[in-house]
């Protein structure tokens, strides 16, 4: 830097004064915030719902931890002495989790596609554990009430799912096979006692992150660049999500070895994410229409067509249809190809608007 800074800044002063009108009009392209009502409403609304869920979830996790702590974390004793409390408590936590799984997904397209918010996506929904991928790992580590630390354990939705349903055996009590649903067959899928210390630490972090996200969402001022980035970054993740779906219990059943997406179908997430991206597109479409009305109309049609395509699969799965891995692969490729086309079209619009779409 040094004296070069001084000289350059002297020049900058002159040039900046001369270039002021041009700079002002360029800035107007990327910082106009008036036209994003749907995006902002969705972001704030879903963040608020997420906060309500994590607050409740944390309170229940604290209760579960208190019960476990009272037995010195002796889970056999906990199960034998506290069944009456444990059954409804864990059932409630699971049903809450399932019911509110969409709270985040319905804004994921916005959060994950917005550079200033993307870290929340890593920590809440998409990040790996340090063991799996040190570079793509979540930013936080957990310290349980008993002092045990869990270095960058993975995304909060995933680790809470893995602990509650026992998809990660290291996060559940060993040697106890509870019959949580009382059907006389203990140890069925999901019938586990989660590691209470881990679960409460994860629930606390989840609650902390959701509150932070709500604050960031409230302060966030949407702009055309972010909206276009969200569409380009998020739309083409369809293939990846279909891959998750293909490898989950929903498609390959008990052969699944994944530790997430086994209790709520990944189709649900895909459906919700696309919904949020449709909201984003609605807000950004007028800007695209200004530079290319044909393209704006075509992209609307392609995005809606993709959403309808997903909706149909989603509805059929909820209706009990079971897809084969081959089906899932073909449908995933179809969705991915359509998504790439949408992202490509949005990139062209961004280029015409003179906006550089940010990298993810």
């Amino acid at each position: 830097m040094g004296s070069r800074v001084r000289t350059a800044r002297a020049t900058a002063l002159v040039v900046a004064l001369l270039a002021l009108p041009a700079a002002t009009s360029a800035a107007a392209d990327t910082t106009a915030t008036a036209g994003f009502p749907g995006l902002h409403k969705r972001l704030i609304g879903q963040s608020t719902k997420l906060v309500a869920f994590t607050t409740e979830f944390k309170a229940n996790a604290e209760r579960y931890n208190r019960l476990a702590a009272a037995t010195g974390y002796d889970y056999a004793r906990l199960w034998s002495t506290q069944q009456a409390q444990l059954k409804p408590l864990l059932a409630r936590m699971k049903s809450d989790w399932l019911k509110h799984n969409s709270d985040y997904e319905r804004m994921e397209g916005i959060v994950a596609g917005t550079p200033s918010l993307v870290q929340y996506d890593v920590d809440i929904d998409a990040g790996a554990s340090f063991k799996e991928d040190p570079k793509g790992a979540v930013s936080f580590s957990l310290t349980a009430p008993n002092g045990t630390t869990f270095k960058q354990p993975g995304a909060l939705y995933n680790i809470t799912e893995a602990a509650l349903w026992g998809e990660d055996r290291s996060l559940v009590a060993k040697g106890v096979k509870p019959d949580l649903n009382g059907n006389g067959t203990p140890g069925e899928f999901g019938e586990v006692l989660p590691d209470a210390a881990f679960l409460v630490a994860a629930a606390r972090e989840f609650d902390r992150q959701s509150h932070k996200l709500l604050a960031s969402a409230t302060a966030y001022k949407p702009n055309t660049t972010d909206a276009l980035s969200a569409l380009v970054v998020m739309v083409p993740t369809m293939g990846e999500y279909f891959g998750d779906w293909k490898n989950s219990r929903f498609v390959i059943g008990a052969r699944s070895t994944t530790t997430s997406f086994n209790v709520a179908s990944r189709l649900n997430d895909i459906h919700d994410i696309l919904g949020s991206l449709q909201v984003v597109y609605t807000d950004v479409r007028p800007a695209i229409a200004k530079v290319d009305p044909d393209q704006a109309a075509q992209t609307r049609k392609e995005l809606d067509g993709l959403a309808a395509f997903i909706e149909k699969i989603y509805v059929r799965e909820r209706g009990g249809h079971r897809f084969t891995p081959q089906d899932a692969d073909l449908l995933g490729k179809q969705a991915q190809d359509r998504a790439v086309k949408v992202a490509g079209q949005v990139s062209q619009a961004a280029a015409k608007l003179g906006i550089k779409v940010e990298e993810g």
Partner: protein
Amino acid sequence: MTPRRSLLLAAALLVLGVSSAHAASTPGQAATQVRERLGNAGQALILGSQGEAATTVALAQREYRADLRGPLAAAPAERAALESALARAHAAAAAGDETGLAVASSEAWAALAGGGYRLALAATERGDAATAARWLLVREFRPPTKLSRPGANATLANVQLAQGTLSPARAAAALRADLLDTYQSRLRDALGSVAPSLANDLPVSAAQQAALAEGFWGVLAPSYRRQVGAAAETSVARDLAALTSAARAGRKAEVATLAGALSQRLDAFRAAPLSAAEQRRRASQVRTFTPLVAVEYGRGVDDGRVLRAFEIQEAITFQTGALSAFRDIEPMLLKRDAGSARTVASSLEQLGGDLDAASSGTRVLDPKLFEQRTKAIVAATDTLFPKPWLAHDSSADFDLIAGSLERMQKAVEAGQYHIAEQARIEAYAFFELGPEQRLRGLAPELFARSEGLFWYGSGDSDGLATLINGRGSPSEIAANRVALDRALSEAEEAVGTGPKSRTTVITNTAIIVFREGLEAVLILAALMASFKGGQRRLRRPMWLGVGAALLASAATWVVAQTILTSLTRYGERLSAVVGLIAIGMLLVILNWFFHKTYWTGHLAGLHGRKQAMLTSGGIAFAQLAALATLGFTSVYREGFETVLFVQALVLATDVATVLTGVLVGVAATVLVGFAVFSLERKLPQKKMLMLTGAMVTWVLVVMVGTTVQIMQTVGWIAVTPISGLRTPYWSGLWFGLYPTWEGVLLQLAAFLFVIGSYVAAEALRKRRRNRAFARGTVLGAEPLRERVL
């Protein structure tokens, strides 16, 4: 679904389809409609509704006839292929043949893409931008990845064609390059997934992807024919058809053999040859990234062990970047010197293997060996690459900056702020090393904005240095990076496209040269004007220093022409050292004047000799040396930077333009020097001394501030931003004031030193005068201390 319900649904779909077919007003929308129908038909078959599938394909055929058949007349081959594919799709859907429908859909899709390409290209070549734009909406795109976004070169070329700023031929070349590159990438992806799909018991997917590869070949074949020959093209087409047949039949071994052989043959082919600029960029990336592999590896390894895994990861990033860039230019190099090209490729691959081994801890090579290998690769490119590729390309610098900023962000996300700071400094070093100098001349506002975002803020952003020091959240830092990315993107464009006007470059250059010279001229003019009477000879050593500095600057000019990059790399360190010497000399001379005030008075009082100091051999030599050094350092520290700046700018513009700007700047500087010199001579003694004092104090404070800043840049002094303080940019410009504790405190110390010295000298003078009055004698000694302050 019952047959009756299927029939009703089919009828409803037909009605809906007919109405929506009329709604498809552009080729893009019509093509989308047809493709979506085929996809929906596939979905219907998966969901067990054969009737719905057949009806949906029938709708697609109807919509094709209504909206596309006519417009596609100018692309008869693609139209015939599309019609045939739609007919087969209908038959397959009606028969419940999932594989047949998937294959026919792929063929129809590729035919649509091919037709769109031909018609967009033809319209562009005849200068019809509007028609080309409509057909461009039919195109496909490369799937985005974490590090790349779909290109928009064809779209932008179309916009420029419409505006009349790009010729039809150049617009067509851009469109051809963009779309052929896209379809080659899609073909490669499809081809690569055939064998794995079959191996994973996904036979329908395998057949679908094989058909897609075969279909996209129709777009690329003419280019292959031109480059490799008709026979070779026919052979590839035959093998692709055989691959589709083998995939449909589920013949795994045959599929694996055919797919492998086809991939190998197509690897050395580039349908859309890179433009000359892109070739240079890739070549520059190879030559820039390769040495950095060894640098990062050396930092990560010690005594046969990996001590810093993240350095190895960085080495892998550079190795991957170098290999990827080399792959892009490999087809051209294979024609030029196949043996050398293969050697370089395998050497780069070997580096990757060695890095993987180090990363996993199985084998850790000696860093010296790594360095030898990377040097050998770069040396091989000296002869392998055509001469125009050997010049440094600034685009590669922006790639490096982006890579370092990416690592910074990752480190922040992992909570490793010290690594993030290292990565930030590294990114800034690449910025300084590469585009900074040209940017100063071409787009100084972008330079100032980028620099602010790297350091203490610009606009609404706090700056990366401030944020990292304050352990800002990953999202805060990401937001700052977004702003920086934007500035750098604009900077890359500004550097890449060169000057927009000659006058702008001349003006920018003149302002920079003037500002560089201002401090030196103020010091020299102020001190020289104060050397009057018997002290006039003190001007001589200063002139000698100035002359030597000008000669040294000229020598730097000559040397810099050959080793510009190296000089720039060490420029900041040299600047810091010269700046320190200049400050030291300024302080020595100030001190000497104060010292002299006392001694002059003292000696005059005792012996009545006014000029004792100036004739005393030992002390006079020290004074002469100090003045000569001050003259030298004042001029050379500015001369050195001006030389680097001018040389870098010459590469982006032309010598005459830059030299004109330099001459204007020098003339303005000299004028100011004369003005100050004359003003001082005309002013009454007291006012002249006050002006001199103010100027030298200002120069000292600015010099301390900027030198501290340079030392922080090269890592010699810590960076501790002052929390909550945002200084306007003019404070750095005119007062060297940056919002760090180190800079502000040292500037304050320098200022207090001057004021303290003045107060001390004043006190001495009063005491001496009082004593003289007490003795009834007023000494006639010159108040030399006032010459400085």
